[in-house]
C-alpha cells in the first residue's frame, strides 16, 4: 500500500509541473474518436478481468465501478471494514494507465491538502500553485466521512465541475476524472456524515458485501504471500478510456427510455414513503449510468433494463425515507424495489404489447378515483 502511494504521488509529481495544461488540453480540446464495438468490448473485458483477479467474487461491484468510470461519475463504496473497498478502488485505478492519488481522510485534513495551495517561490519570487491530491485521474478518498465537513466540501467543485479554484484561479482537472470514496457505515463515532449535497455528487453508491464461501477461500489462497495488487499492470491507456467514454456518450437513448427514466424519478418523488425523492441531477446520472451499462452490454441503445439495473445503485443514497416508513422497517432498498416493481414499462409504439398495460392503467386509475 505504501509503495502504491509513492508511485501514485510520484507520477503526479512528475507530471504536474510541466504537463498539466498540455495533458488537459490534449484530452479536453478535441473529442476523442469513439471506439468500435469490438475494441470497446475488448478494453472493458481487460479491465474487468484484471479487477476480478484481485478481488474475488465481486464481479458485479467491479462492473458497476467501471460503469461509473465510463459514465464520468464518482463512486461511493460503503461497507463494513475489511471487505475490500479500498482494494477495489485501487485495483480499478491500477488497471488503467493513469494517475492515481489517494487521500486518507482524517479529522485534521484541510481543504488545501485536497485542492492544493499557492506557495511563495523564493527563487522566482512568485506565488506558485502547488496542486493538491485531487489532481489525478482517479482520486481515492478513503474513509471520506472521517474528515470534517469543511474538507469534504472542498471536493464539491472538483467532482461536479472537474476543476479547482484556488485564489481566484481555476485549474482544470485531468480527464477522465473520478473520485472513488469509501466510507464505513457502522462505526459513526467521530465522523462527519456526508451532507445531501455531497452525496448527490456521487453517481452511485455500492456496497461490497461479503464474498461467498468459494471466493473467500480463493481469497485466502491468493492473498497469502503477497498482495495481488502488486502484480496488477495497466491494461488500458488513458486515451483508450477517454475513447470509451466517448463511445458511451454516443449510446442512443430513445424517447421511451427517457420517459421511463423520468417516471422513475417522479415515482420516487410521489412516493409517500419518501421524504426526499430523486433529484433531476440524479436523473441525468441515472441515464448516463444506464448508457454506460448498455455500452458495456454491447448495445448501441439503452433499454429500460439498463435503467433498472443501475437504478438502485444510483438512487438509493440520494433518497431520504419518511420517518414513519423507516419506523415500519422500510429501507431505501425495499422502497425502491417496490416503486420499480409497480412502475409500468414504457413502450415506444402504442402498438400491440403496449396496449394492454396502457388500457388497464387508466381503468385502474378510474377505479381508484371513484
Amino acid at each position, binding site marked *: 500500500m505504501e509503495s502504491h502511494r509513492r508511485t501514485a504521488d510520484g507520477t503526479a509529481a512528475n507530471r504536474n509541473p510541466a504537463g498539466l495544461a498540455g495533458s488537459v488540453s490534449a484530452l479536453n480540446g478535441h473529442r476523442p474518436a469513439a471506439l468500435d464495438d469490438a475494441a470497446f468490448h475488448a478494453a472493458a473485458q481487460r479491465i474487468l478481468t484484471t479487477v476480478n483477479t484481485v478481488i474475488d467474487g465481486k464481479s458485479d461491484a467491479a462492473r458497476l465501478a467501471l460503469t461509473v468510470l465510463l459514465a464520468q461519475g464518482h463512486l461511493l463504496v460503503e461497507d463494513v471494514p475489511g471487505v475490500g473497498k479500498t482494494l477495489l478502488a485501487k485495483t480499478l485505478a491500477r488497471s488503467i494507465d493513469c494517475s492515481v492519488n489517494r487521500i486518507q481522510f482524517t479529522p485534521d485534513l484541510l481543504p488545501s491538502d485536497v485542492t492544493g495551495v499557492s506557495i511563495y517561490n523564493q527563487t522566482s519570487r512568485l506565488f506558485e500553485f502547488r496542486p493538491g491530491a485531487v489532481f489525478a485521474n482517479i482520486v481515492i478518498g478513503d474513509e471520506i466521512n472521517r474528515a470534517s465537513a469543511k474538507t469534504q466540501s472542498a471536493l464539491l467543485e472538483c467532482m461536479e465541475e472537474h476543476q479547482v479554484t484556488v485564489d481566484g484561479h481555476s485549474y482544470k482537472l485531468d480527464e477522465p476524472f473520478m473520485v472513488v470514496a469509501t466510507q464505513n457505515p457502522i462505526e459513526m463515532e467521530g465522523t462527519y456524515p456526508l451532507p445531501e449535497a455531497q452525496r448527490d455528487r456521487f453517481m452511485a453508491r455500492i456496497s461490497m458485501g461479503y464474498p461467498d464461501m468459494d471466493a473467500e477461500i480463493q481469497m485466502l489462497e491468493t492473498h497469502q504471500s503477497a498482495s495481488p495488487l502488486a502484480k496488477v499492470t495497466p491494461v488500458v491507456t488513458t486515451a483508450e478510456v477517454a475513447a470509451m467514454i466517448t463511445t458511451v456518450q454516443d449510446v442512443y437513448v*430513445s424517447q421511451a427510455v427517457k420517459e421511463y427514466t423520468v417516471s422513475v424519478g417522479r415515482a420516487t418523488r410521489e412516493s409517500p414513503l419518501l421524504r426526499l425523492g430523486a433529484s433531476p441531477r440524479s436523473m441525468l446520472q441515472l441515464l448516463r449510468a444506464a448508457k454506460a451499462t448498455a455500452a458495456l*452490454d454491447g448495445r448501441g441503445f439503452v433499454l429500460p433494463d439498463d435503467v433498472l439495473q443501475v437504478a438502485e445503485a444510483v438512487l438509493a443514497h440520494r433518497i431520504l425515507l419518511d420517518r414513519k416508513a423507516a419506523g415500519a422497517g422500510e429501507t431505501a432498498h425495499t422502497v425502491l424495489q417496490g416503486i420499480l416493481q409497480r412502475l409500468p414499462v414504457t413502450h415506444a409504439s402504442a402498438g400491440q404489447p403496449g396496449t394492454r398495460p396502457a388500457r388497464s392503467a387508466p381503468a385502474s386509475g378510474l377505479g381508484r378515483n371513484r
Partner: protein
Amino acid sequence: MTLAPPRTPGQGQQQDNGAGAAPRRALVGLFPWAMAAAVALAVCGAALSLNGVLRGWNWYLPVLTTVLVVSFTLAALRGLRAQPLLVTFGGFLALGGILTLTFFRSSSILGVIPGGDTFGELDRLIGRASETVLSETAPVAPNAGIVMVVCAVLGLTVILVDALAVPLGMPAATGAALLALLVVPAMIKPQSVGFWGFVATVAGYLLILGCSQWFAPGFGTQTDAAGSTGHLRRAALTGSVALVAALLVPAVIPGFDQGTFPQGSRLNPWGTSTGLNPMITLGNSLRTPDGTGRITYATNATSPLYLRTVTVENFDGDSWGPDDRNESRIRLAGPIDPGYQVLADAQQRQVTAIDTGSLSSNYLPAPYAPETVRGLNGQWTWDPATLSIKGTDTTSRRQDYIVTSSAPALTPALLARSTGPAQDISDTFTRVPGNVPASVRSTAETVAGAAGTQYQKAMAIQKYLRSADFTYSLQSPVQGGYDGNGLSVLADFLEQKSGYCVHYASAMAVMARLQGIPSRIAVGYAPGRLTGETVPVAGQGPLSEYEVDGRDAHAWPELYFQGLGWVPFEPTPSRGVVPTYATEASAPGTADSLDNNDDLLPEPGQVPSPAPSVSAAPVPQDNGTADAGPRLLPWLLGAGGVLAGGLLLASPFLLRTGIRARRLRPRNATAAAPLAWAELADLGTDYGLPPGPSETPRAYSARLRRSLLGEPDGMDRAAHLAAAALTTGYERNQYGPPEAAGLGPANQEATNPEAANPEPAGPADPASPRDHIDALQAALRANAGGPRRFIATWVPPSVMRRLGFLTGAPFRAVGRGVRGTAQAAARSWRGARGGLR
C-alpha cells in the same frame, strides 16, 4: 348532492368544487322533487305490470297513494335538509302511516298511528295474503291482504331506490330493485311483464339516472369532450354486448320445459305438500321432473286402481277447490257409509295396503269407495257426501294403512239400464253454475245432446275428449295462459284442445252436469307401476306392490248413476286406464284399448285394414320418402346445433389462430417486430405466464425461457434462440435508434456482438418472425403438461382475457358499486356519528 350543508366530508368537497354553482343553486332546489317524481314513476310503472297477477285495477289506487306519499315525504325531508339517515327513517314512518291509513283506519289512532288492534289485523291480512299466494293462481282477486303486501313491498322499494340513488350515490344500482319488481309478473304471468309496465319502469329508471347526473355536483366541470366520448364508447360497447347476449342466450338455452324449475311450475319452498288446493298443485306435481312424494301400495284389486284423495264438485267461482265441509264430517271410527244404495248384482271388495312415504297432504289417498281404514295415526274424518278422508290434526306423511273398498262390478249394460233421476245426493253435484261460457254449453249440446241415456251421453263426452283432436300437454296451458281451472279456463281449453288431466276432467264433469248427469272431479293418482316386489298383507297373503309419485297425480270425473253410485270415467288421453265399462260397447274387439295410450292408436272405427302384407316391397320405400321429410328437419336442426356448439367451443381457438395469422403476415421489419413480440407475449400468456406491466421485454423473455423452456443448450436451443431473437428485435424496434430499427435483425449481428455471444443467434437472421414463433410454440408445447397444452390450444388465456375484459365489464362495475356502497356506508356512518356528537 343533497342540499344539506356539508355535514359529511364527501358533500363538503363536492360543494367546494362548484365554482360556477350560483346559477345552478336554484335548480338544486328542484332536485329532491325531480328525483321523487322519477322514483315514483319507476315504481308505479313497475306496478303497472302487476295487472294480471292481481285481477282488475282496483288495487292500483292504494298502490299509487302509497308510492306517492312515501316518495314525496322523502323529497320533502330532503328539501328540509334533514340528515340522510333521517330522511330514510322518515320514509319508513310515512310508509307505516299510509298503510295504517289505507288498511287499518278503524283500529288506528288519528287514522295514521297504529293502534293496539292494528297488529292483530295486520296478522290477519298477512295470513290472508299467504293463503292467497298458496292457494290461488294468477290472476288472484285483489283482497285486502294481498294488496296490503303489495303496497308495503312497493313502499319499501321506493325507500330502497331512493336510498340507493341519493345518499349512496349509486343511481345505476336502483335498476336491481326495479328489476326485482318486474321479476314477479315476468315469472307469474304467461305474457310476462307487458309493454306499458316495462316502458314506464324504464322511463322512470332513466329519469333517476338523468336526475342524479344533471344535478351531480361534478357535472359540467369535468372535461366534457373526453368524458362524453369515453361514455359513448363504453355505453355503445355495453349496450351491444347486452343486446347480443339478449339475442343469443335465449337461443342457446333449451327452454324451461324441464329441469328443476320447469315453466309453469311454482316455487314450492314448503316441500311436497299438496297445499290447500290440490287442483292448483296438480299441474305442478305433474311437472316435477323427479317425481317426489312416492307412494307404494299393494292391492288385491284385479282392475287398475285409482287412488283418490279429494273431490271437487262446486263449479261456481273463478277458481275451483275442494270443499272441506268440516261441520258435516264424521270422525273416522267405524265403517264408512257411501250414503246411497248400490243395486248392482256383484260387488267387488278390494283390500289395499298403502304406504304414503313422504307425501304430505291433508287428504288420505284411498281407492273408491272406502269402507274401512285401519292402521292410521292421528285424527281423521270423512265426508259423507264425497267419502274423502281428511286429517284434523295430522297429514298423510308416513302413514301405513289398509283400506277395504268396494266397487260394483259395472258393465255397459248395467250402466245403460240406470236411467232414473238422481236421488240420495245433494244438489251440490247437480247444480249448474250460472256463468258457464256459451262455448262450453254449445259443445256439450253438440257432443252429447243427441245421445239417449245418461250412459250414452257420458260415453259421447268421453269419446269426444279422447278423440284425435285433443292432445295431452303439460306445457300448452302454460303457454296459452289457461293453466289452472275454472270455467273460463275450460272455454280456453275446449278451443285450444290441448291440456292435461285437470282440463279433461273438468271439461267432462261440467259437460256432464250440463247434460243433467251429477258429476264431480276426483283428484288423486292414476294407477301406478309394479315395483316387482310383493308385500304380505294381513289376511291376504303376499300382494304385488305398485308405486306412484307426483308425476302420476291425476284428476278424473266421477258421474253419478242412480242405483250404481259414483262411476269414474277417463277422458284424459294417454293417462290412466279406461275402465272396461267405459270402453266403446260397439267395438268389443278393442279390449286392448285398456292400454291407455289411445291417442297414439287411431279410433277403432278408423283403423285402416292392415295392408302392409299386400305389397311389402314398394310400401317401405314410399314410407321412407314420406318419412324423410318430417324426420330430416330435426336431424338438420340437431346437426346444426352440434355444429354451432362446436363452433362456439372452438371459437377461442379459431380467434387465436386468426390473431396469430394476422400478426405473422409478412411485412417490413419495423412493423413485424412489435407484432411478433405481441405474439410471443400472448404465447407466454397462453402457457400461463402473462407479462406484467412493470416487466421489461428482456425480463419477461428471460422469465419465459427460464420457467417454460428446458435447458438453453438442450432440446430447446432453437426455441431459446428464437425467443432471444424476438426479444432483441423488439427491443431494437422499441428503444433502438430509428435507423437501426428499420434495418431489422440483420444489422444486429454487426453492432451487437455481445448480446449474440451468450446465445449465439446463429443463422437466425434470414428466419422470419413466423419461424421464431413456430419454434417457440413447439418448444412450449413440448414442455407443457397435458392440461396446460389443452388450455393453451382450446381456451387460450390471451383470448379469454380479452373476452373476459369485455364480459367482465359489468362485473367490474358491480364490484366498483359494492366498494362504493361500503365506502358510502362507512362515510354515512361516520357522518351520522359526527352528527350525533
